[in-house]
């Protein structure tokens, strides 16, 4: 296609836009042809490289119809979803592989702690309950039994309280961690 022919085609397909704008658009292509020719290209070559004037005109008319249709928002959401999926997957793997061992260990320690607390407390209680028999037997170890009973009982209670405090803080920590995970995925 010759330059004149190409520009005429373009002009025909641009009908519907303001005349001023059509002339402005045509001048852009005129400039393009001019420079191309000065660089040694033929008018036919340039027309071919520019592409179908009908499609180009459609591009200008699309500009006019609300600057951009919804296609851009859909690309970003698919993009976000891909990212979200990858982050979630990564988190699951980290949580299972890296965190499970220390969490299990901590759980074991806590169970041990509670066992110890309960053991001490009942041990102390048992010693105190034995007291009447000790008195009857007139044993010289009354004070020892009394002290040991109270001491053991108190120690048991202390350990149990310590365990409860640790559990409380652990729950807060876990809540925070889960929240952070969710935020990371939704970001």
């Amino acid at each position, binding site marked *: 296609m010759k330059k004149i022919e190409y520009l005429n085609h373009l002009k025909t397909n641009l009908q519907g836009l303001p005349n001023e704008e059509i002339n402005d658009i045509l001048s852009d292509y005129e400039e393009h042809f001019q420079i191309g020719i000065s660089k040694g290209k033929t008018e036919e070559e340039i027309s071919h490289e520019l592409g179908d004037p009908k499609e180009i005109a459609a591009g200008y008319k699309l500009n006019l119809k609300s600057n951009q249709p919804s296609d851009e928002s859909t690309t970003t959401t698919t993009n976000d979803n891909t*990212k979200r999926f990858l982050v979630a997957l990564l988190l699951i793997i980290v949580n299972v592989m890296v965190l499970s061992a220390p969490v299990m260990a901590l759980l074991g320690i806590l169970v041990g702690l509670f066992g110890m607390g309960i053991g001490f407390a009942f041990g102390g209680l048992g010693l105190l309950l034995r007291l009447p028999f000790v008195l009857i037997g007139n044993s010289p170890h009354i004070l020892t039994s009394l002290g040991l009973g109270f001491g053991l009982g108190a120690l048991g209670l202390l350990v149990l309280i310590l365990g409860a405090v640790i559990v409380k803080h652990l729950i807060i920590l876990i809540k925070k961690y889960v929240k952070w995970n969710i935020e990371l995925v939704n970001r």
Partner: protein
Amino acid sequence: MNIQFKKGVLELCVLSLLDRKDFYGYELVEKISKFVNISEGTIYPLLRRFRSEGYVTTYLEESQEGPPRKYYSITNQGKEAYEKLKLEWESFIDGVNNILRGELI
């Protein structure tokens, strides 16, 4: 290649070049079509839209050969749009590449 996809990529290419220096239309078309297979005529509608959106401004400058040329210059608004598009593009490409290469971690 999908037209909508190509259009988005073309926007990114044009903004990227203009972010470095001012170009006249022909030069811009030449640079891009050297690397990407496009219908060269589609760049001009894009440039016009960029101008109406305030991403670029234009001015005429004399050339040694022939009539003055229309130069395109990126605005601050255009630079912001470019940075945003670039980030979107990079994270998109990362995501796609992860899937293509089967690296799901």
